[in-house]
């Protein structure tokens, strides 16, 4: 599966079914064991040839940020609540797909002509944002999109600029994409790729995977926030798109194993893989779950820098996605 196919599928946290099915199909010919665990994670394992080597789990999350339909207005609009961290300021005047039938919808807002000066200042919270599917009244809206229906941003995968792509859900379809690429290789060590659920709502799927797999080493493939354009001073940049895979020494949820962190940096250098160190302790990801699940695991995070990460239109550079894969593979080949 390519990255476009992966981002085209909607998988809001807790509703990863469609993507799980697609990944199961894609992984099937590539691995020796394949199953869905009790947290809904897809676990794909390749047997190694040398059992003295440690068992490595590579992990990426399937889920993406989005919305739940929470109610309906008299005039047929859908009330929404965010799933995962979405800044409501990126939702106005955007396109969404609602429910299993992919009903097209838009998020409108009161016209600028009707806004008071205070309205222009005020951020429209999710209690003031609505999806319009064109339903003529409350009854029709309820019938088409009952409470609990999921809705996803509809931002088509579009290449632009010098090797960049814009799409919804690059966080973390880039990781899922690279897990599938890892499964295509042959390795001496036993390797498991875990496509996990519910990262965006509290690193929940990975807790189950970490507990039942009990890996020696967990490498988390993620997308992380890049803030390198728009006149941001160098010192404030967390990481930069186009500068390679981003290795974290620490973030808001976990502490990298120092040995793994150093190994990753020296391997990247010796193999000539573009890389950078994540220069701020921000965000958090499944490494936090793996590090402390069961008896714990040594963890490290390799991230693709993504601009505008928690909006409907995230941006990444293809060469960074390739660097994440290259470093993952180099690590497996040098255990």
């Amino acid at each position, binding site marked *: 599966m390519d990255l476009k196919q992966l981002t085209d599928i909607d998988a809001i946290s807790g509703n990863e079914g469609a993507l799980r099915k697609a990944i199961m199909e894609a992984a099937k010919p590539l691995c020796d064991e394949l199953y869905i665990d009790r947290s809904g994670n897809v676990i794909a394992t390749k047997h190694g040839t040398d059992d003295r080597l440690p068992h490595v789990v590579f992990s990426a999350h399937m889920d993406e940020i989005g919305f739940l339909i929470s109610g309906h207005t008299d005039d047929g609009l859908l009330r929404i609540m965010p799933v995962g961290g979405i*800044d409501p300021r990126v939702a106005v005047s955007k396109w969404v797909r609602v429910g299993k039938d992919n009903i097209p919808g838009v998020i409108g807002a*009161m016209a600028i002509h009707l806004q008071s000066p205070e309205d222009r200042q005020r951020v429209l919270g999710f209690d003031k944002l609505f999806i319009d599917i*064109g339903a003529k009244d409350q009854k029709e809206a309820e019938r088409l999109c009952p409470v609990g229906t999921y809705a996803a941003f509809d931002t088509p995968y579009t290449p632009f600029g010098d090797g960049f792509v814009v799409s919804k859900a690059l966080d973390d379809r880039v990781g899922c994409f690279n897990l599938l690429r890892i499964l295509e290789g042959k390795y001496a060590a036993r390797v498991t790729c875990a496509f996990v659920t519910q990262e965006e709502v509290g690193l929940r799927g990975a807790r189950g995977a970490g507990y039942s797999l009990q890996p020696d080493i967990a490498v988390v493939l993620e997308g992380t926030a890049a803030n390198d354009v*728009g006149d941001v001073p160098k010192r404030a940049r967390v990481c930069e798109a186009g500068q390679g895979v981003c290795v974290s020494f620490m973030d808001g949820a976990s502490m990298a194993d120092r040995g793994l962190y150093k190994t990753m940096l020296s391997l990247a250098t010796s193999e000539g893989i573009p890389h950078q160190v994540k220069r701020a302790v921000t965000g958090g990801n499944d490494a936090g779950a793996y590090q402390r699940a069961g008896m714990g695991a040594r963890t490290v995070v390799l991230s693709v820098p993504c601009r505008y990460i928690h909006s409907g239109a995230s941006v990444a550079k293809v060469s960074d996605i390739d660097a994440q894969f290259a470093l993952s593979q180099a690590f497996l080949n040098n255990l």
Partner: protein
Amino acid sequence: MLIEQFLREVTAIPGLTGSEQEVARYIADAFAPYADEVRIDSVQSVIARIRGDGPKVMFAAHLDEIGLMVSAIEEDGALRLGNVGGVDPRILPGMVVTVLGRQKLKGVIGAKAIHLLSPEDRQKNYKREDLYVDLGLPYDAVAENVHVGDLVQLEQRFVELKNKRFATKTADDRACVAIMYRAMQLLKGMRPTADLYFVATCQEEIGCYGAVTATYGVKPDFAVALDVCHAQTPDAPRSRTQELTSAALAMGPYLHPVVRKKMADIAERINVTVQTDLTRGSTSTDADEIAVSSGGVPTALLELPLKYMHTTVETFDLRTLEETARLLAQFAAEADASWEDELWT
């Protein structure tokens, strides 16, 4: 061409205020099969005429669209933005825009990352000055293709919602250009006697300039401006909005009561529902300027209700649009010299 196809195409073509050539050409070509003559005037308004011996009647809907302009190029290649018309900055973050540089370039509108904002700034909307276009290109490549002053077109998607409702950018006012287009199609099967002018005006969004020059060019006896009005959305004051599902006829001092009454009477007779949009002065449409141009023109204003005006998801009801076109065609077919005698009674 079916009205849906016309709408899909006409809303996609760039025509930012002051740079309307491309969309003017498209509209002129689309109007041509239904008109006796079509011309584009010196400021890029399209004037299509169906010749007749009766009074000159002008219909006008504007063809220009709001958008953005490159105001500066940062050292990292990010483009800073100025306004062309009244763009609500709240709609911009996360939008995929087209920069009309030496070539058309796709870019994403970015904002300062939330973790770099103070807690107070997180409670405020982004201002246009805080935003930028990310072209995914280094400075040199940007500078080669883009100059300060280049235009930026907002994201275009033509989305069909339920109940024949459509969401698109630039429904303001090309949905009303589509009403004229559909009315011209309908007039093919009718026998109008008036001398009819269907005008797609330029430069409305910055002050209705194209309407002024077109009125001087046509010198109509009566006119009907067509524009969008606000349909009801949450939080909007009910007193300033209309139902989405039927046309509105404006009423107020800027508009001529008799021309208005002719339209209202015809609507009633042919069973087209019209609402009343009361304005106490300026209507902020071409009607304001047409009425006082070229010595004065008795003018009515016919409106299509639109949700989320000046966003990229402006939403209208196609059945309302079609009913409005049916009314307009009937009005055009009935326009008669005898109306002149009733004007000031």
